């Protein structure tokens, strides 16, 4: 199976051939993979070099002329470094684009903290009107990219090397109910799905699978809670608690409890492998099972 990044390159290469309105902006990252696309569409595949402020500004400028920009690099350099460009050159100018990141929270742990962006979704939450897709499988990544390509809106697609065993049907909006139970609701975001399924094995809980987290499927969470206890756990592959407020808003009219699990804010200053970082943040199946079980209580165990 290819990675989400490889799928992004192959599907965007096809989309560039299909849709003359699409343009790709790079800052050296993945430029090698897009070499054939750049040869085929030299005016619509633009590599600005290692210049991320310019990369976002160019994306905004392309959109001002009516093109649909796809802008891509590591999450740290796509959102965090040029954040004010994202805020002003898209949102304030009233134009859209598709920002596609790689690297996620710790796709390259040996690369250290400079290439980790657990805060990307929380950061984007400070801005208005961004759709955020967090696919958990290359097939989902391709489906969500194809959905984003023809629009005029602002879309962030967060790709990761962490991937589930198989893809689920995704519609770019709603959460998917993959297991039903009576003792609480667990929302698994994108790449966290397999670990959440393993962690909740044998628990009497509803599991929702979320690949589009903004806008947040509040109606789906309310439906899943139903008449049962309004106890919700959100397991996110980025900063813990990023969606806690969204769950809280979804359940504003009923007494409820929310547990937000994800990557800790603390910089752990370790290299190594992704599995080791998942375990360090308690996001491996064992760590998740303990915390979810304690939060939902004895009723969760069948």
């Amino acid at each position: 199976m290819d990675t989400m990044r490889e799928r992004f390159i192959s599907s965007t290469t096809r989309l560039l051939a299909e849709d003359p309105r699409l343009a790709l902006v790079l800052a050296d990252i993945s430029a090698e993979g897009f070499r054939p696309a750049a040869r085929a569409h030299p005016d619509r595949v633009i590599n600005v070099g290692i210049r991320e402020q310019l990369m976002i500004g160019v994306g905004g400028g392309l959109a001002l002329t009516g093109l649909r920009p796809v802008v891509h690099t590591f999450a740290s350099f796509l959102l965090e470094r040029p954040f004010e460009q994202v805020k002003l050159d898209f949102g304030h100018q009233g134009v859209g684009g598709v920002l596609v990141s790689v690297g996620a929270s710790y796709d390259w742990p040996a690369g250290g903290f400079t290439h980790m962006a657990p805060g990307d979704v929380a950061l984007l939450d400070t801005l208005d009107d961004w759709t955020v897709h967090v696919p958990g499988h290359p097939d989902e990544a391709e489906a969500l990219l194809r959905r984003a390509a023809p629009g005029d809106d602002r879309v962030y697609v967060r790709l990761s090397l962490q991937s589930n065993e198989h893809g689920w049907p995704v519609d770019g909006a709603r959460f998917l109910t993959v297991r039903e139970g009576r003792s609480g609701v667990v929302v698994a975001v994108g790449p966290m799905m397999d670990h959440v399924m393993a962690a909740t094995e044998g628990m009497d809980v509803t599991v929702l699978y979320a690949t589009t987290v903004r806008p947040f499927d509040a109606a789906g969470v309310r439906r899943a809670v139903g008449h049962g206890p309004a106890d919700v756990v959100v397991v996110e592959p980025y900063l813990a608690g990023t969606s806690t407020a969204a769950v809280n808003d979804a359940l504003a009219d009923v007494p409820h409890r929310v547990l937000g699990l994800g990557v800790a804010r603390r910089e752990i200053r370790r290299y190594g492998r992704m599995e080791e970082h998942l375990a360090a943040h308690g996001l491996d199946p064992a760590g998740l099972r303990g915390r979810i079980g304690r939060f939902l209580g004895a009723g969760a165990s069948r």
Partner: protein
Amino acid sequence: MHDTAPDRRDLGRLTALMALMTGDEKHGPAATSTLDALWVLYDRVLRVTPETADSPERDRFLLSKGHGPMAYYAVLAAKGFIDEEVLAGFGSYDSPLGHHPDRMLVPGVEIGSGSLGHGLPLAVGTALGLRAQGLDTPRVWVLIGDAELDEGSNHEAIAFAGPAGLDRLHTLVIDNASATHGWPGGIATRFAAAGWSTASVDGRDPQALYSAFTAPHPGRPHAVVARVEPRTA
């Protein structure tokens, strides 16, 4: 070809329009630092009118240095993009005219600006977008200040646009010597080193501005540095 007398009459009318915003008949050099260059551009160079303000074929003018936009609004009013009546509300809650312009509120305004260093990268993207769509006629102009040039994003754009051969891109630098550390060696050299065509002129001389604005520069982007009175003078 214009002689200077009509330009002087035009400038008198423009400062009267600025007075509608500021309530002040007399303006210091800082408030009018962009005025002469803006007028020459809109009166004699840019191919855009209120009727073509949404046409894909129009020339684009991006005011990057959004601070002190009274001269810009005066020119837009004089050319009919906005009604003179809205000038008096300048900066008020219900006015479309803020102390920094917003493209979503003002017809003919291509970008919202105010935060420095955004216009030139947006202009590069605009030039690339027009080229990719085969729109070969429109030219792209962006106005920045010499102090705005401090922002590193400009240098990312300058270094890219030269080698990219973006010959439809034009940068007008209004130089009122307000950059804290100055530009030893000159502003134009920053552009020239990246392969731009450059011209440095008196920013109060309409004929010199017009000549610099219309100088041919095949295969290269063009930068015009327009010197005006130092801000602190």
